[in-house]
């Protein structure tokens, strides 16, 4: 490397230094500290702890509640991905043009401006089996009321519906940006060739939205593995363990069941590894060049 080049690189690192320092202090250090704690029996608020080796990790193999929470998290991730991909896409296609599109975009984006607690409490009331409006109208229509959140068969689906309602606006905006990027000439050429709506969507819109789809899938899957707020407010993991996710279980281990930070850190690292593997897989599967 020439002297001038070295100086240039040094200057670049100098500019990056503040950000890197903050990243190291508030991201890397806690991450590594968590890794260290995962090999101990550390408890929140206790100064002393012992090194346990891999005991926290091997114990996870026998922790049936952890297994259930892993399964629930996987189920939520798989079951919610299609609606999260499809609902905002359909809305984006509908709102890409039209007179009321600006107003409707705002309307659909509004739920995303609410905090997860607000959304959870609102849906908790909407789905209340005794005084909730959802069941009230079902009864008025002659349909028997259901305990959506207390029935193991429907509880996770209710959480998925709540999440779709909440985040649709966000993904809608992302899709709209992707749709605006597709050159109009391609549609005009397709129309001249006599391509119908479905053919145009399949051959132009969908392939050219691939980077956006990749972004949506990857961010949604990462977010799904970390789902907590909706579950915490709506069901606290219930009924029984029917909607207990990994982060809910981790939270309970760290903050409710005897402040077991060592054991909770081990769970967090297992979750981290799973997310890492899935993210790499997704990038590999969905990677591809977009050519116009």
């Amino acid at each position, binding site marked *: 490397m020439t002297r001038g080049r070295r100086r240039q690189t040094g200057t670049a690192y100098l500019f990056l230094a503040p950000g890197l320092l903050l990243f190291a202090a508030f991201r890397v250090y806690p991450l590594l500290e968590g890794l260290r704690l995962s090999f101990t029996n550390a408890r929140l*608020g206790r100064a002393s702890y012992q090194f346990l080796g891999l005991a926290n990790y091997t114990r996870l193999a026998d922790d049936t509640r952890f297994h259930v929470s892993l399964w629930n998290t996987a189920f939520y991730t798989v079951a919610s991905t299609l609606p999260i991909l499809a609902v905002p896409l359909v809305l984006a296609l509908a709102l890409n043009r039209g007179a009321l599109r600006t107003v409707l975009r705002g309307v659909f984006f509004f739920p995303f401006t609410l905090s997860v607690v607000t959304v959870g409490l609102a849906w908790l009331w909407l789905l209340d089996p005794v005084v909730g409006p959802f069941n009230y109208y079902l009864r008025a229509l002659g349909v028997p009321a259901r305990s959506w959140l207390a029935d193991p068969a429907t509880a996770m689906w209710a959480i998925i519906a709540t999440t779709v309602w909440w985040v649709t606006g966000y993904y809608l905006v992302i899709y709209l940006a992707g749709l605006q990027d597709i050159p109009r000439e391609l549609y005009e050429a397709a129309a001249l060739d006599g391509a119908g709506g479905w053919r145009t969507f399949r051959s132009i819109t969908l392939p050219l939205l691939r980077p956006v789809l990749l972004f949506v899938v990857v961010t949604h899957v990462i977010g799904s593995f970390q789902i907590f707020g909706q579950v915490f407010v709506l069901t606290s993991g219930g009924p029984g363990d029917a909607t207990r996710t990994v982060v809910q279980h981790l939270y309970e281990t760290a903050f409710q069941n005897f402040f077991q930070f060592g054991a909770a850190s081990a769970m967090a690292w297992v979750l981290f590894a799973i997310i890492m593997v899935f993210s790499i897989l997704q990038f590999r599967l969905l990677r591809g060049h977009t050519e116009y």
Partner: protein
Amino acid sequence: MAQRPVSRRTFLAGAAAAATATAWPRPGAAQSKATITYWNGLTGADGKVMDELIERFTRETGIRVEQQRLPWADLYPKLQVSVPAGEGPDLALIHTVEVPHFANDGVLEAIDEATATGKGFRGDGYLPATWQGGTFQGKRYSLPLDVPQHLLYLNVKVMKEAGLVGADGKPKVPAGRDELVTMAKKIARGDTFGFAIGTSNPGRYTWGFHNLLWQNGANIYTPDLKRAGVSEPAALEVAEFWAGLGGPLGIAPPANANCRDAFIAGRLGMWIAGSWNFTGLREAKVDFAAAPVPRLFKQPVVWSMPHQYAFPKPKSADRNRREAAWTHVRWLTDHVAEWTLKAGQVSASRKAHGDPRVTGDPVLKTLLGQAPNWQVGQPTPKWVAAENLTRPVIESIYTGQKPAKAAMEDLARQINALPD
């Protein structure tokens, strides 16, 4: 008169004297200006009452109180991590069952009896269960304020519609489990329910489950606190009844119903719930009657969970702040009748029990009448963790996901596996 010029030496001496005079602590001066931090979880209507009382306290004593109020479930982890870091409050209000684990982890400062007595706090001034609840392994860590407890609420309108009122128009009170079920079945139809225990999420309401366990002579741990007692036959009998409530008996709302809203909306007839609900029911103008918790099993035990004042360990001792915190505890204990009347929480101190305003209130009178039957959680640092493990298990029983026996045996295994 001609003014004499002030020399530099005189000026400096005078300034030093003035500075010394103002800096020297006068008796009471420092305390009157003290500001104490006070953490509590009074997020309901009782929080407003506490605000009013604290405002009066500050007016009268000059001591400012900075409150931090957050849900109990968030308050406790915060205390657990803040106090060792030296960032804890001067004073905290906690539940009795939290005392053992906080004491065990060195979060709370021990209160020696001589200091407590010197400040006017003596065991004979309190109901025994509440006073005893402030100790762990022979040492005192907290002083009781009040006694949140269970109560049976009867919705007069619903009971009337079901024909469950006496000749005097007052709702009938069930004498035992069979009668309660029979009466509840008369009420239950469509989306109206006969009986519930718990405010929201009755399926996972551990305090209600504890109440029934205690009534049947069972508990979370065996009496020697060495192993779980939840798979004992008496506990299994309670679990079977719990399963019945959620399903076969057909009298109680679903696991995640909001029973308080259902009671206010006239969709629930008989409701065992916390005493903290009654002021809200009055505000909502619900026509209700209150009765002691019925004896559903062997003994008429009433679940209670006294609030306790505790002094978290400070990083470094600050005598003025500690004295100011003591002054606050003393002041509120002296004014506990007002707390009882406005917040609806019966005082732990006997002082307010003879107050005619308290004895004249039918609900408070009922709550006081339950005093001989109060029971609290077991004094083990693992109690709260065991309670958290209990929650999803009893919900799985209530919703019929798991048979009672298998679920309770699994719970016993989980409790026994808790680390020391």
